[in-house]
């Protein structure tokens, strides 16, 4: 169950408390996120929406351990990540987070197979074990027949599928998707969303997704809006109730 009021269970997979992020631009301090709370359970699928500059990507970067908050804490599967050193955080990301980016961000000089294999190179798996995992991930996304293709030989939708395969190949604790359909046509976007839904439904993956597209956001179990640095549940937004209780 997803909660933004700070009252979630202690067993939540992702537990965010009092999360703030400030940036300095010139001499001015800009508050992007203001003491957010969030609880996400295993198998949840959360969509984050909000206007440009509302802090969606900043929140995703903080949850993925790519950035550090100004205040507050983030706990994932019992690990408090906000005080980890840079190198610990790198190891933690390799083990727990699968990233799916809007622009796919595949390595153009590597084949689909080699791109998907990258996260496994950081593990102790043998070559044959890696091959098994990569083949499974590529079959989940329906690209078993495109293993030796380079990104330039794939369509946008297929590239995003390879990105998804790369994100799931190491069986991370959760997936972070930053505008996963932002660069795709509607048909390809539908296919990608169907795939993400399948990962949640069939493989019990936990997914946190940022999107601008209300149609895409509607596919998530819960959609949260970021408004002036605060998280608001979509259903409550219409009632003018701000979640988290801090204003």
């Amino acid at each position: 169950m997803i909660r933004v009021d700070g009252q979630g269970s202690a067993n939540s997979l992702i537990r965010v408390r009092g999360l703030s992020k400030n940036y300095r631009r010139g001499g001015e301090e800009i508050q992007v996120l203001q003491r957010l709370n969030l609880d996400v359970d295993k198998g949840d699928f959360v969509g984050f929406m909000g206007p440009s500059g509302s802090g969606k990507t900043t929140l995703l970067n903080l949850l993925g351990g790519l950035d550090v908050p100004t205040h507050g804490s983030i706990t994932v599967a019992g690990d408090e990540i906000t005080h980890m050193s840079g190198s610990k955080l790198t190891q933690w990301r390799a083990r727990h987070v699968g990233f799916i980016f809007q622009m796919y961000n595949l390595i153009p000089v590597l084949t689909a197979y080699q791109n998907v294999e990258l996260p496994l190179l950081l593990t102790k798996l043998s070559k044959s074990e890696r091959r098994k995992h990569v083949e499974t991930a590529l079959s989940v996304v329906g690209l078993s027949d495109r293993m030796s293709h380079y990104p330039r030989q794939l369509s946008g939708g297929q590239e995003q599928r390879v990105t998804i395969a790369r994100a799931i190949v190491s069986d991370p604790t959760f997936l972070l998707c930053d505008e996963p359909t932002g660069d795709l046509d509607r048909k390809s976007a539908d296919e990608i969303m169907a795939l993400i839904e399948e990962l949640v439904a069939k493989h019990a993956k936990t997914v946190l997704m940022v999107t601008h597209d209300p149609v895409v956001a509607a596919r998530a179990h819960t959609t949260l809006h970021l408004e002036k640095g605060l998280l608001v549940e979509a259903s409550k937004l219409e009632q003018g109730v701000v979640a988290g209780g801090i204003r």
Partner: protein
Amino acid sequence: MKFRSLILANLFRKKIRLILTIGSFAIALILFTFLAVVYSAFNRGIEVAGADRLVIENRVGLMQTMPVSYADQVRAIPGVKYVTHDHWFGGVYQEEKNFFPQFVIDPENHLKVYPEFSVPDDEWNNFVKDQQGAIAGAKTAKRFGWKVGDRIPIKNSLYGPTKTWELNLDGIYHAKTADGDESQFWLQWKNFDENVPAAIKSTAGWYILRLDSPDDAVRVAKAIDAKYANSSWETKTETESAFQAGFAKQFGNIEFLILSIGSVVFFTLLLVTGNTMAISVRERISELAVLKAIGVRDGSVLFMVLAESMLIAFFGGVLGLLLAWAAIPAMSAKLTGFLPPLILSKALLSFGLLFAVLVGLTSGLIPGIGAMRMRVVNALRRV
């Protein structure tokens, strides 16, 4: 190495750029190798100089002579084993361009002082008996197609009016070591003494002594110079290596010249490779950011950039050294007589390769550290 395929794929990402960078590396390495080989040739005399040999020259300079009677006096100094004397002959064989070093030698003592040269006994005995005799180094004999028994005309204008000296090639000498000098040409002092103007008669250009022990060098040198102090022909005695170094310096400060050009080569290579690596890293900043996002450590990112720049340097270095290795014998043949033999030794090859890899490492450091320190969120924002 788990990232081998990624490093190699990145290396061959822009083939034209790779070829051009490797090519510029190879050309710079050829230049570097040529310079190093020439430097080594100039210094070989110093390297092979006998530790137990001293050279006496006129204090005024090498072009001034000394009485030949010094030989017996010097031989009497305790610690001196053998004494011989030379003169620079400086003749021309057929044409000016056919230069090779010619020395007037004292046959009785020459090989005792220079045991690193060998001449077959029968040839040497013929030379000693033949006042118009001459001995040529194997390399010079091969260069001009001379055989024992040939008559060699050498034109000389250093000692009186221009005159052609007809000499009999009695033998051919060989060096006992691979890097020994086989380009010299020796003729008899008696022949020389009878045919030069009166002012040159009974003189020696310089003396070479072989000592009982190298430990005696300082004492003997001091004793000789003290003996002839305030005489008409004051002497300057030094070790053979110091003499050779002074001789090499007559051509100018070769070491400074080579170091200067070498530094320019090094700096240019740094700029070329550094620029290539900087462009290469900037082009794939988002890819590096993704690698870091999925958990590749900072050190591994640095390693990947360094490995790439070092591979470029290695391939360029190997290509340059191979080309130099193929070209140097031809160059050496063209320069025979003007320069000692040009030899690309294994040590020089190893040093060249080390130099190349060092340049690769240095040029990859700045872009590599930049990639290592890059913040993932900033890099992803640029996409």
